[in-house]
Every structure is written in C-alpha cells, then in structure tokens.
C-alpha cells in the first residue's frame, strides 16, 4: 500500500504545509474579506431600504390621518352652516306667520265691529218699522189713533220678551 511507504511522508508533509499556509493566507487576506465586504454591503443596503420603506409608510399614515381629520372638520363645519341657515329660515317663517296672524286678527276685529254696527242699525230700524207697522195696524183695525210713545214702549217690551 503506497500510503504506508514512510519515505513519501516527508515530501507530502512539506508540501502540505507550504500549500496549506498559502491557502490560509490567500483566504484570510484576499478572498474572505472580499466576500464579507460584498455581503455586508448588501445587508446594509437591505436594512437601509427597509428603514426607508418604514419611514415612507409612517408618512403615508400621517397624511391619511390628516386628511381624515380635515374631512371630519369640514363635515362638521358644513353641518353647522346648514343648521344656521335652517334656523334663520325657521325664524323668518315664524315671524311672517305672526305678522300675518296679527293682520288677520285686526281685519277680523274690524269686520266684527262692522257687523255689530250693522246689526245695531238693523235692530234700530226694526224697532222703528215694527212700531209704525203696529200703529198702522192698530189704526186700520180699530180706527183708534195710538200714541207714539205707547207704541214704542210696546215694541220695546215685545222685543225684550223675544
């Protein structure tokens, strides 16, 4: 078995030491730092981008919140304005209604006064006319001339009874 040939051990070990030391120095000084640098750069870049994305997301959320609050404000303002307009219109209407009612009441009173006057007038006419009719009727039936005062009293009496 060639592996057990002791005379080959020395050259193998010598060259193993030489090549492995070379390997170690190339890896430690050149190859590995290069790879580590690239991996580090990539990691920082990824972390950086994630941070940026988080910041942008926060900004977007803040903008959305501001929009919501301004929308709510505008809505409540609009509601207040609508309410003020409705109140004003209601007040106006109530005022007009009161005025109209007052006017109508006045006219009603005037009309009632006129009616009462006319009624009084008519009643007075009825007294006079009925007195004359009664005097004429009495004269025609009995031929007796009746005193005006008596007729008047009788009419007043009769009207009172009615």
């Amino acid at each position, binding site marked *: *078995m*060639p*592996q*057990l*040939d002791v*005379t*080959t*051990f*020395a*050259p*193998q*070990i*010598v*060259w*193993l*030491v030489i*090549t*492995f030391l*070379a*390997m*170690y120095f*190339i*890896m*430690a000084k*050149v*190859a*590995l730092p*290069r*790879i*580590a*640098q*690239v*991996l580090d*750069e*990539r990691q920082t*870049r990824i972390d950086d981008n994630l941070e940026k994305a988080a910041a942008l997301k926060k900004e977007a959320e803040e903008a959305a919140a501001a929009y919501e609050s301004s929308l709510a404000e505008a809505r409540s303002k609009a509601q207040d304005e609508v309410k003020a307009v409705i109140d004003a219109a209601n007040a106006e209407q109530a005022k007009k209604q009161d005025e109209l009612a007052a006017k109508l009441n006045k006219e009603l009173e005037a009309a009632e006064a006129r009616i009462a006057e006319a009624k009084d007038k008519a009643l007075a006419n009825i007294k006079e006319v009925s007195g004359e009719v009664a005097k004429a009727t009495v004269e025609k039936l009995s031929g007796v001339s009746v005193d005006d005062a008596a007729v008047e009293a009788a009419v007043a009496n009769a009207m009172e009874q009615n």
Partner: protein
Amino acid sequence: MSNNPLHQFTITEIVPVEIAGINASFTNSAVAMVATVAVVSIFLIMGMGGRSLVPGRWQSMAELSYSFVADMVRDNVGNEGRKYFPIIFSLFMFILFGNFLGLLPYSFTFTSHVAVTFTLAMAVFIGVTLIGIARHGLHFFTFFVPGGVPAVMLPLLVPIEIISYLSRPVSLSIRLFANMTAGHTMMKVFAAFIVPLGFLGGWAPFAVDVALTGFEFLVAFLQAYVFAVLTCIYLNDSIHLH
C-alpha cells in the same frame, strides 16, 4: 497502466529536492495540492470579481460557500468562533477541492494519504488544545473530569476521557483517508473489469462505476464537511469546556 487498484496512490517524484537532509521533492501529490489552492483561489477571487449587489451564478457559489462555513462555525462554536473562521474555511475548501479534483481521471487524490490527513488532524488537535489551555489555563484539564459523576467512578472515567480525547486526531485522519482510499480503490477494481469483459459483459462494471462516481462526489463533499464540523466541535469544546 497497471491494473493494481492501489497503483493510483503511488507517489512519484517530479522534481527531487532535498533541504537539510529532508526530502522535500515536488511530487504528484504536491501538484494536486498546488492545483487545489489555485482552483479555490481562482474560484473565490474571480467569482467575487464583479462584487455585484445582485450576484450572478459564479458569485452566488462563492458567497454560498462562505455562508455555508460561516453558519457552520456560528452554529457549532458561537460568536467566539468568528476569529477561527478563516482557518476552518481554508480547511473545508482545501479538503473539498482536493477530494473533487481527485475525482478527475488521471489526477491524484492527496487526501487519500494518511500522511496528509494525519498532519491536518494533528494540526487541528494541537491547535485546539493550545487554544483551550490559553483560554482556561490549568482549568482546561477539568475537561477530562465528567460532571455529575460519583467520585468513586473518576479513576475509571478520567482515563477513558483522556484516551477518547487523544484518539480524536486518529479518528479524524483515518476517516478521511479511509473513505477516499476505499472509494477510489473500488472504482479502480470495477474499472479493471470493464475491458476484459468486452462489449457484452463490460456494461455491468461500467454502470457500477458510473453510479460510484456520483456516490464519490457525495463522499467527497461529506468527508470535507465532517472534517470541518468536527474541527468546529473540538474548537467549541476547547472554548466552552463542557
């Protein structure tokens, strides 16, 4: 070409060198090691050449191997393991690409030699032990005293713990060496049957070799992973004791 299935493991000197009485010849094993270092370096350095924010296929593979080992170290050792990451990464990639390149036809698998795997395992073992002593001083040796055990049992258990600790480099190196040697030997054994059995019978060992090749890729990855994970676990023991 020899039909001996073990012939593929033969070390041949390409450039004989001798320094201070030590044979430091450049062999076929050394060629494979140099090729491994070159391929890994090219793969990682060229792959990261673009340094793109959004990686392409090649850069993805380089980043994937980095995060694979980084996760392994973090899961098994924790944050203290961070400074040992380069050495564990080098170990993993060195063994992984050594195994993979060894699967190429006519190439040489340096991880199939116990001299190599035992040297790596001893380096891990000594390194991890020194880290433990440096961090905990003499307190490190309480590692061999299992907790919650009656004092009567300790004379039995402490030697067992010490033996199991000392056998770590042996199991670590034999596992890798045996897996690679066995796989390559088996492929060679079946391959040696293909041509002698001719067009009629040769298909069967050929099919087995195709399946074994796929299986060997799995083993190549798995053994590199096991070596690296065990290194992490030993390191964790040294840093956190129990």
